[in-house]
C-alpha cells in the first residue's frame, strides 16, 4: 500500500440544453457554420446589454437540486475580467460569491461502497468562443457561435481519493445530469468538460499538498489516465525529494502525459465585481417549487426502488437505471406485464443487444413497450416458443412490425391444437419402431429423438411442452 493519499477535486463545465443563448436569443445548436449564430449581444459589441434567459436559470436550479444543493434565494452575476481572443467583451459573465446552488453532495458507488462527495457550488455562466489555429501556426480564426451558450459549472469538494473514483464520480454525475435533461452531456462535442485539481499528501496529514490543475480532459478514459499519470508523477517527485510546482497542466492524449500550460506566476487576477448590467436575481420559493416538479427520480433512488419494488437483483436494477429512457421503458412494460424479471431479461438481453448492434437508443427504436409486452404475452400463452420469440423480436426491431403481424406473416404460430398434435405423434410412433422400443427399454435419449421428429415434421412450430406430454401419454399405450 502506498503511504500517500490522493486528493482530487473536479470542476465540471456543462453546456445547458436551452434553445437559445444565456443573454440573447441566438440559437445554441452545435456544429453550424462558424459565426452564423451570433448577434451584437453575444459578440459584445459596444453598447449592447445582456438579458438573462430564464430557462437557463431554471436549468441551473434544477442541476443544483439534483445535486442536493441549497439554492441561494439571492443570487447575482459578476464579471470575471480577462483578455482572451475568444472572449469578445474581455470579461466573462459568471457568478462569484452568490452561486445559484451551494453545499450539495453526490452519492457515488465505487467498489461496492457508497461514498458521499461534496459539491461546493453550482453556478451559471456564459461560454466563450472557439479558436481555430492554422496548421502553420501563423494565424488563428475565431468562431463565436459558442459565445453566450449557457454553462453550469459544478465544483466538487476535494473529496475524491483516486483517479478511478474521479471517473466514477464523473460517470455518475453525467448519469444524473442526463436524467434531469439539462444537457446532452456529450463530451466529444464539449457539452461536458472536466478540469481536475490534484494533490497528494502523506496519509494522516491534515494539510493539503501543493496542487496542480489538469485541464480539458475530453473523455472518461482521459480523466482516469490523466489523473493516474499525474498521481504517479507527483509521488515520484516527492519520493525523489522534489517539490510540486503549482501549475496548470494539459493532458496530452497521444503522448500519454501531462504537459505544462502555465505556472502560478502567470496566474490571472480576474478582478471580479458585480455585473452592473444585470440586476440581482431573487430565486423565489415559487420558482424552486416549480423546478422541483421537473426533478425526476434520480438513478440511485430509482435503482433502490427497482430492487425493492420489483425484486430485481442489484445488478439488473443497476443496468435498467443506466439511462432514464431505459428505466422508463422497463417500467412501462411492467405496468402491462406483471413479471418484472422476465421483462428485465428481455430488455437487458435481446433488446439491448439489437440496440447496441444498430447503434440506437430507447428514443430511436421502433419497438414500444406495448409491442414488447404483446410478444411476451404470446410467449407466455405458448403461442410462440422461446426460440421463435427471439426471431420475432429481431423482426419487430428491424421492421417496426407488431408481434402478431410477424408471427402471422412468417407462419410462426405454434401448433397447440391437441387433435392435430395427436395425429402427428401417432404417425411418428408408427414410423419409428426402433426408438419406441428403446424408450420402452428405459433409454431416456429415445424420447428426445421422438420429440425432435415431431418438431421436424411440423417445421418447429409444435408446442414443445404439449408434444412432450402427448408423446409420453401415447407411448404408455404402445
Amino acid at each position, binding site marked *: 500500500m502506498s503511504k500517500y493519499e490522493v486528493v482530487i477535486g473536479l470542476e465540471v463545465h456543462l453546456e445547458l440544453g436551452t434553445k437559445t443563448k444565456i443573454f440573447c436569443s441566438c440559437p445554441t445548436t452545435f456544429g453550424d457554420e462558424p459565426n452564423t449564430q451570433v448577434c451584437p449581444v453575444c459578440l459584445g459589441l459596444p*453598447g449592447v*446589454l445582456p438579458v438573462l434567459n430564464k430557462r437557463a436559470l431554471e436549468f441551473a436550479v434544477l442541476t443544483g437540486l439534483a445535486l442536493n444543493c441549497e439554492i441561494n434565494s439571492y443570487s447575482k452575476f459578476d464579471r470575471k475580467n480577462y483578455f482572451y481572443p475568444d472572449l469578445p*467583451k*474581455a470579461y466573462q459573465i459568471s457568478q462569484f460569491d452568490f452561486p445559484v446552488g451551494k453545499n450539495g453532495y453526490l452519492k457515488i458507488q465505487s467498489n461496492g461502497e457508497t461514498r458521499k462527495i461534496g459539491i461546493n457550488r453550482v453556478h451559471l455562466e456564459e461560454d466563450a468562443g472557439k479558436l481555430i489555429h492554422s496548421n502553420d501556426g501563423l494565424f488563428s480564426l475565431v468562431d463565436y457561435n459558442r459565445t453566450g451558450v449557457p454553462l453550469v459549472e459544478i465544483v466538487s469538494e476535494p473529496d475524491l481519493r483516486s483517479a478511478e473514483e474521479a471517473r466514477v464520480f464523473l460517470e455518475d454525475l453525467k448519469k444524473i445530469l442526463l436524467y434531469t435533461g439539462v444537457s446532452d452531456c456529450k463530451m466529444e462535442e464539449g457539452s461536458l468538460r472536466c478540469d481536475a485539481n490534484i494533490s497528494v499528501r502523506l496519509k494522516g496529514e491534515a494539510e493539503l499538498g501543493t496542487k496542480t490543475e489538469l485541464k480539458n480532459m475530453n473523455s472518461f478514459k482521459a480523466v482516469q489516465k490523466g489523473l493516474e499519470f499525474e498521481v504517479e508523477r507527483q509521488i515520484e517527485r516527492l519520493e525523489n525529494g522534489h517539490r510540486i510546482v503549482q501549475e496548470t497542466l494539459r493532458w496530452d492524449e497521444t503522448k500519454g502525459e501531462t504537459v505544462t500550460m502555465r505556472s502560478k506566476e502567470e496566474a490571472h487576477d480576474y478582478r471580479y465585481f458585480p455585473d452592473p448590467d*444585470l440586476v440581482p436575481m431573487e430565486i423565489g420559493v415559487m420558482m424552486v417549487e416549480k423546478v422541483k416538479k421537473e426533478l425526476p427520480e434520480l438513478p440511485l433512488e430509482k435503482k433502490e426502488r427497482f430492487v425493492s419494488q420489483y425484486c430485481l437483483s442489484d445488478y439488473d436494477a443497476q443496468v435498467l437505471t443506466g439511462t432514464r429512457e431505459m428505466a422508463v421503458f422497463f417500467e412501462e412494460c411492467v405496468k402491462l406485464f406483471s413479471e418484472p424479471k422476465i421483462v428485465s431479461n428481455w430488455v437487458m438481453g435481446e433488446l439491448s443487444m439489437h440496440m447496441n448492434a444498430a447503434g440506437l437508443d430507447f428514443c430511436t427504436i421502433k419497438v414500444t413497450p406495448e409491442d414488447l409486452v404483446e410478444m411476451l404475452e404470446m410467449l407466455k400463452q405458448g403461442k410462440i416458443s422461446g426460440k421463435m420469440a427471439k426471431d420475432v423480436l429481431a423482426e419487430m426491431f428491424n421492421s417496426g412490425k407488431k408481434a402478431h403481424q410477424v408471427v402471422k406473416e412468417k407462419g410462426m404460430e405454434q401448433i397447440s391444437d391437441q387433435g392435430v398434435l395427436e395425429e402427428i405423434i401417432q404417425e411418428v410412433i408408427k414410423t419409428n419402431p426402433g426408438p419406441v422400443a428403446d424408450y420402452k427399454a428405459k433409454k431416456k435419449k429415445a424420447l428426445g429423438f421422438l420429440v425432435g421428429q415431431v418438431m421436424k415434421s411440423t417445421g418447429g412450430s409444435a408446442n414443445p411442452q404439449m408434444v412432450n406430454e402427448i408423446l409420453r401419454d401415447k407411448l404408455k399405450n404402445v
Partner: protein
Amino acid sequence: MNLYELKVHEAHDLIKQKKISCEEILLGVLDRIEEVEGIVQGFVTVTRDYALKKARETDKKIALGRKVGPLTGIPFALKDNMCSKDILTTCSSKILEGFKPPYNATVFERLEEQGAVLVGKTNMDEFAMGSSTENSGLFATKNPWDPSRVPGGSSGGSAAVVASDQVPFALGSDTGGSIRQPASYCGVVGMKPTYGRVSRYGLVAFASSLDQIGPLTKDVKDCALVMNAICGSDLKDSTSAPVDVPDFCSFIGKEVKGIRMGIAEEYFSLGIDDAVRNVIGKAIDNLENLGMGKVELSLPHTSYALPAYYLVSPAEASSNLSRYDGIRYGFRHEDSNNLLETYQKTRSRGFGAEVKRRIMLGTYALSSGYYDAYYLKAQKVRTLIKNDFDEAFKNCDVIVTPTAPTVSFKAGENTQDPLQMYLNDVFTIPVSMSGLPAVSIPCGFINGLPVGLQIIGKPFDEGTILQVADAFEQSRSFLNMKPNFGSFVRGGV
C-alpha cells in the same frame, strides 16, 4: 424669427398646422449648422443626406394622413456614444475609428418611431470621461456664449449645438453630471432621468451602474416632450425599470404652491464661486415667491461622493473598455509583431490620456487585495449617500442646488490638473451615485455666462422636477437670452 430658433413645441405646432414642412425646418437647421458649426464644433458627424431622406419621407407620410406626433419632423442630434445603425459612432475616440454599429440604440429607435429626424452625432469627452469636451479624441467643442470657454462635458457637443440653435434638441448621457453640467455652462435645459428610466441599450458603456441618457432642450416643456418619447422599460435592458411613464407634459403649467424645496447646506460651501452662490440664492427666493416652501437640511456624506465616484466609475469603465482590442472593429495598430503587441499598441495609441488614467485607476481599484479597500468601500459610501437623500426626501419634495460650482471656465484652464477638473461635478455626482433624477435649468448670468440651477427629485418623480422647473422658467422669461453670435460669426474668427 428664424426656423432654426424654433423650440420643439413651436416647430410641432407649425408642422401640425401644415404651415411648414419637415423639410423646411430641416433645411433651416442645416443652414444654421453651416453658419455656426465652424465656430462651435459640436458635431462629429452631420447626417445631412440621411436627414433629408427622413424629412422628405416624413412629409410624404404626413401628406398621406400620418398622425403628427410631438416629435414628428423635429430635427435632433445624438451624443456620439449612442449607436446608430450604419452611421459612425465614435465616442469621440480614435479607438472606435470607422465603427458603424449594425444596430440602433433603443432611444434612437424610439425617436425615429416618432418621426424625429437625426441630423448628426455630437462631440463629447472621449467615452464620456471629462467635464469640458476637451478630452475628445477628435477636437474640442466651444461654448457658444464665449468660444474661448468650454461647453462643459461630457455631453458638451449636445449642449453646445442646442444652445447655438443648430438643433431644437439633443440627447446626452450623464454618468456623474455629464448632461447637467454642460447644460449649466451652455444655458440650456438638461435632464438626467432616474437610473433605469431610459433604456441604456445601444449606449456605449462608460460606467454601467451610473450611465443614463437624457434630453438637452431649449426649454422645460421641450424636455417633457422628449422625456415622453424616450422613457419606459425595454426588454433589451434588464436594468430598465418596469415603472409606468406618466405624461410629463401634464406637469407643465401647473402651480408649485406648497411644494417643499430642500436646501442642503453642503451644496453652498464646497468650493462654490461667490457669484454663483448669489445667483442661486436669488433663484431660491424666486421659487419661494412662487409659493414653494423652504426646508433647510443636511446631506452629511456629500463630500465623500466625489472620491467614491472616482473609484466606482473607473472600475466599471476599466471592465467596459477592455473589449477594445483592435481585432473586430475600430482602430487597429497594424505595425505589431504578435497578438499581445497588437493589443498593447492599439490601446496605447487608440485611447487618450484621461481614458487611460481611468482604466488604470479602475484596474487598480478592482485588483485582488485592493478590492475591499477601494471598490467595496466606495460602494458602501454610495449607500450612505443614497440614505442621506432618502432621509432628506422625507421632509421635502425636491432639493435645489447649484448645478456646478462655477460658470464655464477657459479652455485649457484645467486640462493639466485632472483633480481640479473633477471638482466641476461635485454637485452632480451625489445625485448620480444615488440614481436620482435631476434637471439643470438656466437661472441667471455672470458676466454674460449662464448659471445652472439643479433641481433634484425623488426616484421616478421627474414630473415634480419638471413642474418646478417650468414654473421657474415661466417666472423668469428674461432667461430666453441667446448667445450673441453676431460678433464673431459674421466677422469670421
